[in-house]
């Protein structure tokens, strides 16, 4: 049976596991119909021209976790930023692991989507925010239809999350192939602040397909920093759908570090709904082999005096392929918008590919919008210069690549996270040098 049919026909079984009388369930029922109608995207759609899911969809995925699997912290410690005190929301094969998690209800809520969906206490938040900005496309609707588990984070007005929050999804590979559909909701009320680090990690080479949806609401003057670490096994594919709505004078940033996995597609959407907003989208992609990373971004400016800054760096070796498709829409009312987009790429091999496409739709006449794209190679003169100072070729290349991505790394606000990412890059490039001296 094809995956689509299997998913649609599994919906009845899924309904046995949730409260079908809840208001949310109407949304789910609606969503499965949309998925049934639209299905998975194909290369015929403009937005999916360079990314094919065909090879990923052919596996016989188990859709619901069959059993609870446990993991010992010592075995997976390295996937956490463990030298930093954080809240943790940890899932193993789609099931919440209370053993590995550290949640809170003290002033802020850092807990589970499943409890937020089923307890009255959260009803008004769910009614106000759940599925309000998520697109009605096939993949997002599929996630909505099966939405049950994920992270729920609520930071009330004037509150500061006292420490960063880590959301980690492990897949143990005990199933021969597994599909995961986490659903996260993050609400930062007026004048609040929160930092979140998200990671998807499979623990062996069995195929995993994650179709994740995250809705983030950033109210007036709030600050949300979201960091995505994508450094998964070679058979793990990720479709990451993130929707962010910002109100006046808020700042939201998303950093995406894409170092691994099979096919990774990031759909990152920012909707600005007030004045004085700043949206920051940064990314570093370093891939090789046959890896594929596709960044599809949207920033929609609707009100005057807002900014957006996009900076994506990509390094592609061997037969790796990258896609950057960055769309900026500036409504007629959104005068004095400053929207910047840059996408710089280094190809280390003749067989590596990058498709870079800016899309600017500007309807206001008093704006500053710019986009730039470069595709190049490492500079031989710079390499010789470094080698002549005793730095071997491999290390010299790594240092140049690190330097190339440096301004994105500089904007990471959590020092321990920055150190960790530096180490991931060093590992990725196969060198043992301290970049961050």
């Amino acid at each position, binding site marked *: 049976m094809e995956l689509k049919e299997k998913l649609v026909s599994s919906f009845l079984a899924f309904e046995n596991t949730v409260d079908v009388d809840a208001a949310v369930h109407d949304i789910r029922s609606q969503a499965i119909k949309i998925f049934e109608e639209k299905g998975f995207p194909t290369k015929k759609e403009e937005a999916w021209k360079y990314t094919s899911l065909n090879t990923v969809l052919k596996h016989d995925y188990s859709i619901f976790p069959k059993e609870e699997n446990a993991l010992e912290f010592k075995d997976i410690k390295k996937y956490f930023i463990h030298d930093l005190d954080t809240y943790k929301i940890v899932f193993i094969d789609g099931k919440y692991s209370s053993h590995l998690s550290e949640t809170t209800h003290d002033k802020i809520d850092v807990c589970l989507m499943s409890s937020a969906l089923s307890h009255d206490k959260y009803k008004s938040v769910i009614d106000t925010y759940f599925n309000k900005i998520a697109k009605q496309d096939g993949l997002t609707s599929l996630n909505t239809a099966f939405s049950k588990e994920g992270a729920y984070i609520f930071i009330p007005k004037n509150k500061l999350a006292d420490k960063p929050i880590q959301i980690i999804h492990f897949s143990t590979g005990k199933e021969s192939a597994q599909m995961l559909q986490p659903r996260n909701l993050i609400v930062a009320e007026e004048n609040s602040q929160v930092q979140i680090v998200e990671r998807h990690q499979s623990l062996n080479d069995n195929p995993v397909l994650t179709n994740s949806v995250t809705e983030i609401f950033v109210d007036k003057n709030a600050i949300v920093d979201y960091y995505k670490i994508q450094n998964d096994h070679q058979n793990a594919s990720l479709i990451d759908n993130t929707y962010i709505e910002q109100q006046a004078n808020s700042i939201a940033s998303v950093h995406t570090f894409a170092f691994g996995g099979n096919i990774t597609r990031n759909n990152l959407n920012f909707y600005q709904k007030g004045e004085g907003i700043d949206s920051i989208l940064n990314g570093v992609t370093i891939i090789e082999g046959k890896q594929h990373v596709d960044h599809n971004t949207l920033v929609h400016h609707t009100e005057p005096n807002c900014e957006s800054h996009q900076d994506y760096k990509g390094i592609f070796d061997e037969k790796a392929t990258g896609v950057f498709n960055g769309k900026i829409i500036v409504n007629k009312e959104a005068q004095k918008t400053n929207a910047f987009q840059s996408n710089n790429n280094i190809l280390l091999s003749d067989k590596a590919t990058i498709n870079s496409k800016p899309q600017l739709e500007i309807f206001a006449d008093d704006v500053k919008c710019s986009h730039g794209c470069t595709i190049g190679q490492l500079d031989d003169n*710079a390499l*010789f*210069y470094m080698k*002549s*100072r*005793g730095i071997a*070729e491999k290390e010299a290349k790594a240092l140049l690549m690190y330097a190339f991505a440096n301004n994105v790394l500089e904007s990471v606000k959590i020092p321990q996270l920055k150190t960790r990412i530096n180490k991931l890059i060093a590992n990725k490039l196969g060198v043992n040098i*301290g970049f961050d001296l």
Partner: protein
Amino acid sequence: MLEIKDLHASVEGKEILKGLNLNVKAGEIHAIMGPNGAGKSTLASIVAGKEEYEVTKGNILLDNEDIEELAAEERAHKGVFLSFQYPVEIPGVTVTNFMKTAINETRKAQGLEEMPAKDMLKKIREKSELLEIDRKFLSRSLNEGFSGGEKKRNEIFQMAMMEPKLAILDETDSGLDIDALRIVANGVNKLKSNDNAIVVITHYQRLLEYIVPDFVHVLYDGKIVKSGTKELALELEEKGYDWIKEEINA
């Protein structure tokens, strides 16, 4: 220390060095002068190990060991240093980070432990004072936005940090005003010892008033055509290169 025998080298099929001989002993300073296009910078790059140049004949020996097959970094590990005529700008790598990496990678290759952070800082402080380099300068991206003089001073700072056995200074005087020239020359002189050697490549005699050479060579059309002492440099300054060309062609 450095012995170059009958060196022929070409780039993209064009022969640039045509049988060059040079013998530099420890404790000596040699100056190589010559008109534009004579092959001075090619010689510097070849000794440092730039791969674009093909050595078609001859040998380069460092302490009696043939280094011709060694990669640039391996030559650096053996104590070869090139002060670049045009230092490369490397955005995103600070001067300090670059030097730490260079020194520790060299130490690793020599089988030594990494230099302790405290010693590294002390050394950076000492050597930057020697070259009268502002601390703030050290946390800037390597050569990015540096003036010509700052770039050259930074090259000699790197030389001071690396403590090479053989330093080749390629047109270090170009782009320097007189004060900077004095600081750079003073730095080089302080680094000079009986155990190391310096080859100064220059177009003009000016630098040699401050870094006084034991020997002066004239490189013309890919060969050393005349050698002498520091007086030769003065003669070249006064009379230009035409008389040498005439002597050769006669």
